[in-house]
């Protein structure tokens, strides 16, 4: 097992910079999820760690060892590919045993190791099959099995669940988490699905066009997104963003509604007095009840009952607010709704840099 460290890691294709000076320390046994929109360089970063992609600049360390120029086989990593990359002509057993065989591990030892790993993943009864005779979920498990028999220092996952249906995805996600708790190997996991990121990660790294936008625990990135991008990326449905003008401690919206900020937050943004700013509010942080003093008034456009709760789209000035409500709420379309906001849950962003203006981080406990 080992730590990983990226120091000013870069990747460029000609003049095109795909990964721009990434610095990241991953602790031993940590589960880090790399998340971001399509094309932001997640796979490239992962593949540079694997040794499948050359490095244009900076250094990669595994433990204390500089691995920039080591081929993949000398990095002691195992990888689960998005398309699983199982050897189609080999049986499940042979697929899992291949890396052990290549490394000259005695046959007597290979059998039990493959068997153990297969039992752990519930695929022991499939060992004689070829990949073509397996379901998608089973193939996914074989791919993981092939990685864990190796007992590598680091596991790399590149969108391992994206070929599974929603239900199976949830199931395998839980299994990956269990696996990590059982064997504790360092994991770097790439996905563009923020739910996977939130549920699996010890720490989430949010990438945006080759740059790290924010690093933090799921809690931190959810409660304290440091930019509009992160606020919008983490959490589903996405955070609502509306423009408002700040007058001392009060936010004035284009609809005429206003919101008074708690004093700590008002202090953070003192210098924005008289200016317009971006306000971010998560759908789940509205409250619907007896009209509060500072409430936002919007007209119901769409109602989406989800069973567990109901999403309501309100037109609010020139923007639309998505509000999460209790499942028994049945607002009528066209009705005007008055919704309250937990002021300490309001995120404020600079209108030009789109950076968060919060100085005092909000902890989950404090907000509750």
């Amino acid at each position, binding site marked *: 097992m080992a730590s990983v460290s990226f120091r000013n890691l870069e990747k460029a294709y000609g003049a095109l910079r795909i990964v721009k000076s990434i610095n990241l320390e991953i602790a031993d046994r940590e589960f880090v999820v790399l998340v971001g929109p399509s094309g932001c360089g997640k796979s490239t970063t992962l593949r540079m760690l*694997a*040794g*499948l992609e050359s490095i244009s600049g900076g250094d990669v360390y595994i433990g204390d060892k500089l691995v920039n120029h080591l*081929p*993949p*086989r000398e990095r002691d*990593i*195992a*990888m689960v*590919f998005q*398309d699983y*990359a*199982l*050897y*189609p*002509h080999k049986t499940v057993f042979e697929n899992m045993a*291949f*890396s052990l065989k*290549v*490394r000259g591990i005695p046959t007597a030892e290979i059998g039990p190791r493959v068997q153990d790993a297969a039992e752990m993943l519930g695929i022991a009864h499939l060992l004689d099959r070829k990949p073509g005779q397996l379901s998608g979920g089973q193939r996914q498990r074989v791919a993981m099995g*092939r990685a864990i028999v*190796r007992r590598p220092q680091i596991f790399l996952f590149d969108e391992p669940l994206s070929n599974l249906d929603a239900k199976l995805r949830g199931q395998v996600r839980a299994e990956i988490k269990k696996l990590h708790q059982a064997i504790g190997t360092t994991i770097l996991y790439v996905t563009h699905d923020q739910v996977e990121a939130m549920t699996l990660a010890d720490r989430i790294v949010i990438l945006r066009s080759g740059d790290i936008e924010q690093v933090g625990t799921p809690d931190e990135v959810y409660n304290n997104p440091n930019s509009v991008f992160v606020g919008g990326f983490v959490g589903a449905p996405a955070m609502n963003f509306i423009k408002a003008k700040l007058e001392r401690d009060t936010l004035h919206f284009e609809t005429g509604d206003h919101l008074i900020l708690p004093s700590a937050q008002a202090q953070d943004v003192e210098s924005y007095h008289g200016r317009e700013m971006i306000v971010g509010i998560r759908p789940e942080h509205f409250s619907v009840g007896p009209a509060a003093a500072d409430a936002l008034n919007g007209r119901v456009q769409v109602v989406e009952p989800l069973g567990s709760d109901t999403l309501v789209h309100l037109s609010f000035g020139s923007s639309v607010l998505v509000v999460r409500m209790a499942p028994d709420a049945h607002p009528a379309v066209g009705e005007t709704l008055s919704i309250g906001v937990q002021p300490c849950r309001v995120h404020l962003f600079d209108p030009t840099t789109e950076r968060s203006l919060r100085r005092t981080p909000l902890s989950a406990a404090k907000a509750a």
Partner: protein
Amino acid sequence: MTAQPNREGSKSSFTRFLDLSETKLAALLLAPAAILLVLIVVYPVGRLIWTSFFNLSLTSGMPASFAGFENYGLLLKDPIFWQTTKNTLLITVVTVPGALLLGIALALMANLPFERKWPVRLSLLIPWALPLSFAGLIFAWFFHSEYGVVNDVLRRFGLKGIIWFNSEEWAMTAICLTIIWKTSSFMALIILAGLQTIPRSLYEAADVDGAGRVRQFFEITLPLLKPSIIIALIFRTITALQTFDIPYTMTRGGPGSSTATLAMYIHQNTVDFLDLGYGSALAVVMFLLSMAVTMVYLRFIRSTR
């Protein structure tokens, strides 16, 4: 229902059509293909076999007469038949594996990540696109004892030039080399197509698993190429059994009949001697050889599935 008699009527005729038993429908749908097959394959082959049972020599001036297995009896006692069959099999046994190995090497080369792929692919295509007899003529010139480039190279390395077409062995060697050159590009094209269906991630997985290039070739590339290789082998073997143009243009079968093939002997009997009965019997033998080879390969494919 009675309000729409028209619709009802057309519907019932349509369902009647669908009510055909499945086998009848299958027969109906297969009929055009079957008829075509009969016209272009079964009839000519049948006709060939039929003719082989006749004395039908256009030079004898005699009408065709049924001869039973007489042509086949003659053939078994005909030393030139045995010689040309042996030559044909020799050419097959040497040039098919030769072209396969060279073809695999060429395909692997063409599959390298070149900046520009088309010049490589084009140079692969050229030998394939050349007419066979043209290749034969060019190589006859290459192997010319005085002016040929091959002897020139040999002499530059201090070796003695070879009078290629005066010796049975060297003439056969020259022919085999030419055939290998000419046909390896076809092998390479089929194998290249096969190579391109192997996902890159398999090699990446093997890299991570720790397998080196050689191991990857034998454990991934070769097994996954097997279907392409077998298809290429079937085609190549059948055309090898029918080898005609290259020996015909290079040596005319000489010295003696030492480089003549079965196809050349058939040609000689039918076109030069106009002995259609005997020529047909020879052709039937060649047909049976080809069938036998195809069967062996197909059995092999099935056993490895």
